[in-house]
């Protein structure tokens, strides 16, 4: 019996707190919350660098093309490890072809990203519908299965979280340097290429792993949204790296509680992934309104003073 069945929005947190100290085994809501929070922190640590390096749409392209790799791996191998490997290969392929189109064919960045991702994604859908005869995989890849998460998803999310936090903690200086100013990085003796590729790998890994559990668009929302919200109030990268995950976790808590309480009150199982991205949007809207109001007051005060 799920202790969360029938609880409202605020009761959810009460039950969560109670169960947190009772030490009982995880139920589905808690697994979901844990996976989302881990993904949120993992994305929150990488997100600032992704946005600073203007890789957001590249990350979007990456998460779309993953479908091709996943579908091919499903055809050939069929295990979870194989799927991840396939996703990684397709991410590399995306990056390589984008780079090739830019260098050899001299296309602008937006054109090459657009061309690659629409073509590879179309190919992915073709593989899924023609060979796998499983249109569901396509829909699931896009929408995620955030409402049917299992313990194995949690293991994956925790692994990603561990990897990302260690990497960002150890190398945040190099990442920041490359994100802000590649030329400076080069003059200081860092290889800009190595760190750019490292950042790319980190992004790809985050997208792929999180995509398996929460879907393409939640990854994108978690990578960009909390960072943009945090940036309204923080100026320094250190603070941003702290606040972005915190905002992400808050959004996840609100989203899971809202999803559960909506199920309790209306009986409609809504997509938690959808709710999560709406919550992230609302977070930004609230923060932006507060910021606007406070700047306006400051301006008024100075005028009067």
């Amino acid at each position: 019996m799920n202790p969360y069945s029938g609880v409202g929005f605020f009761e959810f947190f009460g039950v969560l707190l109670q169960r947190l100290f009772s030490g009982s085994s995880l139920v589905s809501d808690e697994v979901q919350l844990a996976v989302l929070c881990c993904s949120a922190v993992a994305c929150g640590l990488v997100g600032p660098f992704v946005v600073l390096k203007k890789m957001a749409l590249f990350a979007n392209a990456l998460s779309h093309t993953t479908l091709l790799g996943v579908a091919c791996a499903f055809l050939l191998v069929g295990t979870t490890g194989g799927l991840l490997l396939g996703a990684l290969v397709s991410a590399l392929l995306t990056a390589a072809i984008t780079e090739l189109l830019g260098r050899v064919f001299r296309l602008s960045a937006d054109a090459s990203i657009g061309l690659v991702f629409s073509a590879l994604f179309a190919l992915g859908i073709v593989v899924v519908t023609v060979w796998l005869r499983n249109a569901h995989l396509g829909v699931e890849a896009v929408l995620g299965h955030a409402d049917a998460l299992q313990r194995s998803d949690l293991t994956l999310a925790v692994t990603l979280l561990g990897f990302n936090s260690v990497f960002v903690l150890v190398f945040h200086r190099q990442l920041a340097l490359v994100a802000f100013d590649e030329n400076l990085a080069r003059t200081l003796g860092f290889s800009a290429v190595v760190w750019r590729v490292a950042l790319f790998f980190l992004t790809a890994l985050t997208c792929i792993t999180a995509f398996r559990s929460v879907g393409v668009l939640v990854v994108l929302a978690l990578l960009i949204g909390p960072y943009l919200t945090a940036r309204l109030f923080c100026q320094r990268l250190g603070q941003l790296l702290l606040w972005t995950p915190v905002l992400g976790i808050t959004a996840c808590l609100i989203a899971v509680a809202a999803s559960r309480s909506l199920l309790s009150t209306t009986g409609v199982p809504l997509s938690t992934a959808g709710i999560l991205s709406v919550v992230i949007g609302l977070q930004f809207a609230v923060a932006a309104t507060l910021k606007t109001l406070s700047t306006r007051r400051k301006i008024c005060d100075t005028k009067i003073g």
Partner: protein
Amino acid sequence: MTLAEYFTDPILRAPSIGCMLMCMTAGVLGVVLFLQKKLLLSETVSHAAYPGALVGLIALALMGPEMEPYAFAAVLVGAFVFAWAGLKTVQFLENRFRIHADAALGFSLALFFGLGVLLTSWVQAVFPLWSNQAETLLFGQAATLTDGHLWVYGSLTAIVLTFVCLCFRPLQTLLFDRGSSAVERAVQLLLLLAIVVGIRSAGIILVAGMLIAPAVAARALARSLGPMFVWAAVFGGLSGFLGNVLTTHVRLPTGPAIVLVSTGFALLSLLVSPSRGVAFRFVRKYRFHLRCREENLLKELWKKGRMVRKGWVGFRLKQQGWVVRDGQWLHLTEDGKTKAAGIVRLHRLWELYLTEQLGVEAVRVHRSAEEMEHILTPELEERLTKVLANPEKDPHAQPIPPRRP
């Protein structure tokens, strides 16, 4: 099945003509976005239209199942409103909060599509009868287009083509400099319309691909704006038609089929375009490289008299009648001697020019001359001769071969 049947058969004609018109329109508008470097805006706008389309469906579903014939109109209206909102969100984020276009596009894409996912789950739970329609929106389904849809597609295509023809000059100005805002607004309006209408045939996720690939293909072939529009329309129309043919034969979803065909066109024209194509660039490079090697061999033969050399370059020289083979030795013919002397003359003239006119030391001029001897044209040779007053010795006191008529 013959080609004509795709245009006359009462069941086949609506999907094939519809896809053609749609992709033509999308291709033409894609050109404008391509030149503004805003192609990915179409991606965000199309994803933003998704929740709108669902809102339209939900509104109909609330009114009852007898409203199903109006689904196309309801989806159009809802999608248009939300696509517009998505566009405004991007602009708001960029202008008000000074967020870079990349992050602004990504963020609003995620938000609007998230709302769409939320609504999808609602439709699935509350109106299961309509959820099939909702899934069609994602990947597109051209096969069920009817003649009624053709009127919408046809008029949109007509509007876009008329607009491009009438406002050609203002468009040109706009692409150089974001000045004339009325035209820009009109372009945005048409873009929204095209994307919203295109969702029916290509699906939310790939409607952007319909704009991107024809524009890329057109850019590879055209040198100015007018031809680029024409090429984009041609490629768009062709890929719409062929994509639809693929759909009917192989049972692919329409959107991916169209995108794959048009990407194929884009890659092909990127490869083989006569002026900008990569294949021709490589061919030109290779031929220049080969000529350099031929000329170097000629020069060597001219200095040494005869040489042992096998291989492609020697064979090419023999083909052109500049050398003859005698056992294992290569000898220059009379023609070859003239040709080689001409190259040596260019080399030494350039060395002399560098030392006398540009003041470079004599020990440093050889490397530059090694490259210039392959590039200098007869006109330049004449000028160099005039400037240097028809010299006879180069800076290393070697004789400069006289000019041949």
